C-alpha cells in the first residue's frame, strides 16, 4: 500500500511539473467552454438586414421598429429600391432583406392579409434558416398584437414551443459534447503518453524488474488521471452553470457516476494505445486520430447522427463518446434519471470490460 501511494505521488509530480500537461488539463476545458459558448454558438445574433419599404406606412413602420428592437438583427438601412438589396447581398454585407409591398397597411386593414417578403442568404443554410425563423417569429408576434387591437375574432396563430430548450440555447448541445471531448483527450492521450514515456525513457524496464507488480504500475498510472478528470468534470459543470447559465436539471451525483464510468472507459483505451505505441508521438497521433476525431464527428454533438448514412451510423455506435454524450444530455438537460439511461450505461460498461481485457492481454504479451 505504501508503495502504491509513493507511486501515485510520483505520477502527480510528473503532471504538476510539466507545464504543457497542466495547460492541456486545465486550460483546455476552459477554452473549449468559452469558445463553444460564445464564439461558435448556433444562435445568430446581430445579423445585418436591409429593409426595402415600398409601403412606407404605419404598419410597416411598426414592424420595422420591432425588428430593429430585436437583439438578433441590426437594420443596416431602409431603402426604397430593390437594386440596393441585391448590391448589399453581393457585397456580403447583409444576411437578409425584408421587402414590404406597396399598400401593406391597406391590405392588412381591409383584406386582413398582407404579404412580406423575406430574402435570406442561404449560402450557409443553417444560418439562413435560423434567420428566417427569427423573422417569421417577429412578424407573427406583430400579427398577434394587431389582432388584439382590432378585435378581429378569428385568426390562425401558431404556437411554437421548444421542448427542453425554450430559448434555443446552443449550450445545451455542446456542454455534454465538450465534456466527452475533454475527458477523451485527457484520459486517452495523457495516460497513453505517460505510459509510453516510461517505456521510452527506460524507466518502465526498471519498474518491471522491481518487485512492484505490473498491474499496480497500470493502476497507479490510472488513478491520478481519474482524479484529475473528475476535477475537470467539476470545472466544466461549474463553468456551464455560472458562466453559460445552463443549469443541471438532473442529479449531479448520477452525472458524476456516469462520468467516472466514461473516464474508466477512456483510461482503458489509453492503456490499449500505450501497449501498441512505441513512442510518445505515436501515442499522441493514435489518440488524436483514433479518438479525438471520431469523438468530434460521431458523438453527435457537432453533426446529428440521425442524418448519417447507415454505415456511418453503425460506426458511430462504436464510439464510446456517443453513448456518454446521450447520457449527459439526458441527465443534465432533460433531468431524467437512471431508468432512462441504463441501456447507454450498459453499452459503456460492456465497452470498458472489453477494452480492459484486450489491453491487459496485450500488456502481458509485451512483457513475455
Amino acid at each position, binding site marked *: 500500500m*505504501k*508503495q502504491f501511494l*509513493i*507511486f501515485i505521488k*510520483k505520477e502527480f*509530480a*510528473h503532471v504538476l*511539473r*510539466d507545464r504543457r500537461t497542466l495547460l492541456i488539463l486545465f486550460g483546455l476545458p476552459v477554452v473549449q467552454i468559452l469558445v463553444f459558448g460564445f464564439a461558435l454558438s448556433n444562435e445568430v445574433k446581430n445579423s445585418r438586414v436591409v429593409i426595402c419599404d415600398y409601403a412606407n406606412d404605419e404598419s410597416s413602420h411598426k414592424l420595422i421598429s420591432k425588428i430593429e428592437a430585436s437583439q438578433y438583427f441590426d437594420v443596416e438601412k431602409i431603402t426604397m429600391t430593390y437594386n440596393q438589396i441585391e448590391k448589399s447581398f453581393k457585397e456580403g454585407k447583409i444576411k437578409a432583406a425584408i421587402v414590404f409591398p406597396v399598400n401593406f397597411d391597406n391590405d392588412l386593414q381591409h383584406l386582413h392579409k398582407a404579404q412580406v417578403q423575406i430574402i435570406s442568404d442561404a449560402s450557409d443554410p443553417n444560418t439562413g434558416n435560423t434567420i428566417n425563423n427569427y423573422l417569421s417569429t417577429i412578424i407573427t408576434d406583430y400579427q398577434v398584437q394587431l389582432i388584439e387591437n382590432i378585435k378581429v375574432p378569428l385568426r390562425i396563430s401558431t404556437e411554437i414551443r421548444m421542448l427542453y430548450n425554450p430559448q434555443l440555447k446552443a449550450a445545451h448541445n455542446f456542454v455534454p459534447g465538450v465534456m466527452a471531448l475533454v475527458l477523451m483527450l485527457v484520459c486517452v492521450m495523457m495516460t497513453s503518453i505517460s505510459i509510453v514515456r516510461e517505456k521510452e*525513457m*527506460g*524507466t518502465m*524496464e*526498471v*519498474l*518491471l*524488474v*522491481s*518487485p*512492484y507488480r505490473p498491474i499496480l504500475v497500470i493502476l497507479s498510472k490510472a488513478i491520478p488521471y481519474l482524479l484529475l478528470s473528475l476535477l475537470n468534470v467539476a470545472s466544466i459543470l461549474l463553468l456551464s452553470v455560472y458562466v453559460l447559465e445552463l443549469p443541471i436539471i438532473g442529479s449531479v451525483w448520477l452525472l458524476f457516476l456516469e462520468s467516472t464510468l466514461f473516464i474508466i472507459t477512456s483510461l482503458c483505451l489509453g492503456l490499449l494505445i500505450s501497449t501498441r505505441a512505441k513512442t510518445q508521438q505515436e501515442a499522441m497521433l493514435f489518440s488524436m486520430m483514433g479518438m479525438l476525431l471520431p469523438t468530434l464527428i460521431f458523438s453527435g454533438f457537432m453533426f446529428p447522427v440521425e442524418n448519417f448514412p447507415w454505415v456511418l451510423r453503425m460506426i458511430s455506435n462504436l464510439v464510446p463518446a456517443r453513448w456518454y454524450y446521450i447520457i449527459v444530455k439526458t441527465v443534465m438537460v432533460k433531468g431524467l434519471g437512471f431508468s432512462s439511461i441504463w441501456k447507454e450505461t450498459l453499452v459503456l460498461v460492456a465497452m470498458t470490460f472489453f477494452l480492459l481485457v484486450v489491453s491487459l492481454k496485450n500488456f502481458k504479451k509485451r*512483457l*513475455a
Partner: protein
Amino acid sequence: MEEQAIKVEKLTKRFGDFTAVDEISFEVTKGEIFGFLGANGAGKTTAMRMLCGLSIPTSGNASVVGFDVYEQTENIKRNIGYMSQRFSLYEDLTVIENIKFFGGIYGLRNKQIKEKSDSLIERLGLQNETKKLVGALPLGWKQKLAFSVALIHEPQIIFLDEPTGGVDPVTRRQFWEMIYEISEKGITVFVTTHYMDEAEYCSRVTIMVDGRIEALDSPRKLKERFNVSSMDEVFYLLARGAKKAVI
C-alpha cells in the same frame, strides 16, 4: 549461502520458429564480474530478461540467487538490481525524489531510505544537487546516480545492460571503479557490453553467437586459446561465423 549466484542449464527461449536463446548453460560465482558479450541480435538481452524474471523460458533450468526463474520471479526481483544504458531515472524528478521513489518501490522503510540516501549523496558528492532535477545533471553524474539507485535495496546481483553506452572514457573508467568496488563487497555483477576493452576488466566472459554460447572463460585464457592479443580479436573471430547476427 550458496556459492553460485546464477546457475543456468540448457536455457532456451523460442519466439515461434525463431530460437533466440539456444540451450545455453553456465554458472556465475558469487562476487564475480561476469561479462556477457555478443553482437546485436545474438540473444544477450533475451537471456538477461529471463534471468531477471521478466520473461519465462521455453525450456531448460535456471536459478538466480537460489530462486527458480519459472516459479520464484518475485523473489528474484527482490534480490537483483538492474540498470541499462538509458540510466532509468526520472528526469523531471529531483535527485532526492528519485532515490525516495525507487527506495519506496522496493519496500524500504522511511528510516532506511533516509540512511541510504544520506550515505549515497555523500559518497557521490551530490550534497548541493539534491533538489536539482535529474535532467539537469551531467551525464556522468546521472549514470553514477542510476548505478547507486539500482543498488539501494542491497541486491545480491546487479544486472548492467550496456551501462556505459555513450559515456566519455573518463566517466567509463570511473564507472568501472565503482563496479570493482561493489564486486569486492561480494555483489555479483552481470554486465553486457560492446566495448571490448571493458571485457578485459571482467573476471570471466561469455561470447554469444546466434543464441548459443561460443566461448566462456577468463579474458586471458580466451586470448591464449585463440592465440590473439586482444579481446577485440577474439570477439571478431567468433562473431564472424554468425548467421543471424549483424556485426
